[in-house]
């Protein structure tokens, strides 16, 4: 493999193994890789998978390896070789059609800088921590906050290296030199793009993404709701407008703690273990002027249309009597606060200051069931989850992120890596949350490498027919079982013995 990428792209010291391990781990030793390689071309990747298949060496591909909270760069199977695509950084923008063809090493900051320095009036959508890869995030179904906030939906056409070294281009890309590769998502016959999302069927070496034409205006409200029980009414006010298209962004309702844990640390408020008391919660909310729940709603586009939609939105929000409703208005050329970046497609890292909540080394692991947009059912799910956080002595961070029909309830468990007793509670806590949700038919949309099997196990209709289908495809495409064994709970026959939920 060194012969393929050259010695300067092979990383196999103890320090390298640590650097490619999980940074927000429950057990830092569980997923340590053997080495990492940094290829720079599709041809090198083809050569590497052929060697890996011949020697049956497991490979774990990362785009930039910054998937904090989901395993960072670390593989499910310890001892795998990480294929780090950080050095593949080509960007091809199609200005007229508002698309971009990217290699996996391009980060959100890279693409943003590229567009800004050339005055290209196209926007990206960014996740709450935008350190990672644009393609990698879309391939893991990451979320942003603009009308392009469901990142996996922006994918349009891929180049993929299959486990036998073959290269396929999906959609219109199957026609050489087709000018429509980044324009039509399906091509002719079965559409394969989503089969390479959250899977281990191939290595995506290029992918098209749709970008958002810069809007004429952005307007909206930053809304705060005072009480815990205001969640349901807030969801019921937003849901119909989202489904109808009055609201086209992906709004995310967050609790007070999601905002506060970026701004302060726990020790400034209490030295008591266990969940924060109601008194402390009230004091922190008062200090920062936070509702129990908050949401930033935005309309984008032509001014007349956006304003008409905003008027409808304002009326719906006034009807549920918010604690506060702060207006936001922007047009191109005007400055805006850095904290507005998420709704303006500007990449950011400051939300990761939450890792310092306990004052030392921290991090987070998510628990993110897919819900309906029913306020009543969401309030019930919140009540159950909040009770579990208090039972296990955790501080509750949650968000409810709207899709067009569904809602993702992204809960974060903030870690205190300096406290072994605390860390012992994390795994049973997460397993309890997953089991509770499963009872109500709620499964997760995305999982940390430690929980991929357990989450996959919840999708068990007809004796795990979906898993059996995934594994039939896996074994057909990857008989040597080299590509990311265990990813999303999909195990090749060669590794089946390692599976444990």
């Amino acid at each position, binding site marked *: 493999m060194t012969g393929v990428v050259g010695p*300067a*792209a092979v*990383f196999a010291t103890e*320090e*390298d193994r*640590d*650097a*490619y391990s999980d*940074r927000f781990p429950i057990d830092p030793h569980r997923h340590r890789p053997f080495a*990492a390689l*940094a290829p*720079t071309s599709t041809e090198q990747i083809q050569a590497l998978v052929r060697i890996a298949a011949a020697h049956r060496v497991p490979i774990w591909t990362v785009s*930039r*390896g*910054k998937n*904090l909270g989901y395993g*960072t*760069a670390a593989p499910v199977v310890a001892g795998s070789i990480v294929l*780090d695509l*950080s*050095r593949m*950084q*080509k*960007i*091809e*923008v*199609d*200005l*007229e059609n*508002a698309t971009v063809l990217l290699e996996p090493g391009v*980060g959100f*900051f*890279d693409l943003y*800088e*590229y567009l800004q320095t*050339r005055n290209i*009036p*196209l926007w990206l959508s960014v996740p709450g*921590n*935008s*350190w990672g890869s644009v393609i990698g995030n879309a391939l893991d179904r990451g979320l942003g906050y603009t009308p392009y906030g469901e990142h996996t939906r922006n994918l349009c056409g891929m180049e993929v290296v299959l486990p036998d070294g073959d290269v396929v281009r999906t959609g219109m890309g199957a026609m050489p030199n087709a000018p429509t590769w980044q324009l039509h998502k399906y091509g002719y016959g079965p559409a394969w793009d989503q089969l390479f999302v959250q899977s281990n069927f191939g290595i995506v070496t290029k992918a098209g993404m749709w970008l958002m*034409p*810069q809007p004429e205006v952005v307007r909206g409200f930053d809304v705060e709701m005072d009480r815990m029980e205001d969640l349901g009414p807030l969801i019921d006010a937003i849901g119909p407008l989202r489904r109808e298209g009055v609201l086209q962004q992906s709004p995310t309702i967050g609790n007070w703690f999601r905002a506060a844990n*970026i701004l302060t*640390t726990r020790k400034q408020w209490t030295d008591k273990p266990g969940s924060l008391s109601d008194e402390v919660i009230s004091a922190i909310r008062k200090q920062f002027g936070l509702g129990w729940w908050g949401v930033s709603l935005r309309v984008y586009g032509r001014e007349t249309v956006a304003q008409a939609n905003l008027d409808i939105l304002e009326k719906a929000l006034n009807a549920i009597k918010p604690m506060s409703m702060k207006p936001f208005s922007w047009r191109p050329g005007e400055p805006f606060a*850095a904290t507005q970046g998420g709704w303006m497609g500007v*990449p*950011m*890292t*400051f*939300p*990761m*200051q939450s*890792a*310092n909540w306990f004052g*030392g*080394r*921290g*991090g987070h692991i998510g628990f993110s069931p897919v819900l309906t947009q029913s306020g009543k059912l969401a309030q019930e799910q919140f009540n159950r989850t909040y009770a579990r956080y208090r039972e296990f002595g955790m501080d509750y961070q949650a968000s409810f992120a709207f899709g067009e029909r569904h809602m993702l309830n992204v809960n974060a468990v903030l870690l205190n890596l300096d406290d072994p007793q605390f860390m012992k509670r994390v795994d049973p806590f997460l397993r309890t949350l997953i089991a509770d949700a499963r009872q109500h038919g709620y499964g997760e949309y995305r999982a940390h490498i430690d929980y991929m099997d357990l989450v996959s196990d919840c999708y068990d209709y007809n004796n795990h027919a979906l898993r059996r289908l995934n594994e039939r495809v896996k074994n057909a495409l990857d008989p040597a079982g080299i590509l990311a064994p265990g990813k999303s709970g999909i195990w090749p026959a060669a590794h089946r013995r390692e599976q444990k939920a």
Partner: protein
Amino acid sequence: MRHALLIGIASLITLGAHAADLNGQQLFQHKCAMCHGAVGMGTGLLARRMKPEVAPLEKREDLSAAYVERAARIGILNMPPITRGDVSDAQLASIATYLSKGKP
């Protein structure tokens, strides 16, 4: 679309492997400033431990090149280690020289 008209016939622009040709300051902007720039996570957390005016790394006078390289490779507190795939040894040396203002 309005933007398409403004842009006219301009079409494809390609970014190459540009990082290889950048100097220490440019590499810092490209590889580090997302966290250690004005509003990044690194600056925000360092401002809790030192005077906020020197929280951005470019304002520091007490960094040695060896310290910067070590900190980047093994991580400090909530800063994850920077992998050699992301930032090569040569690139990190260049960044470290820039931030240390010549101190080895």
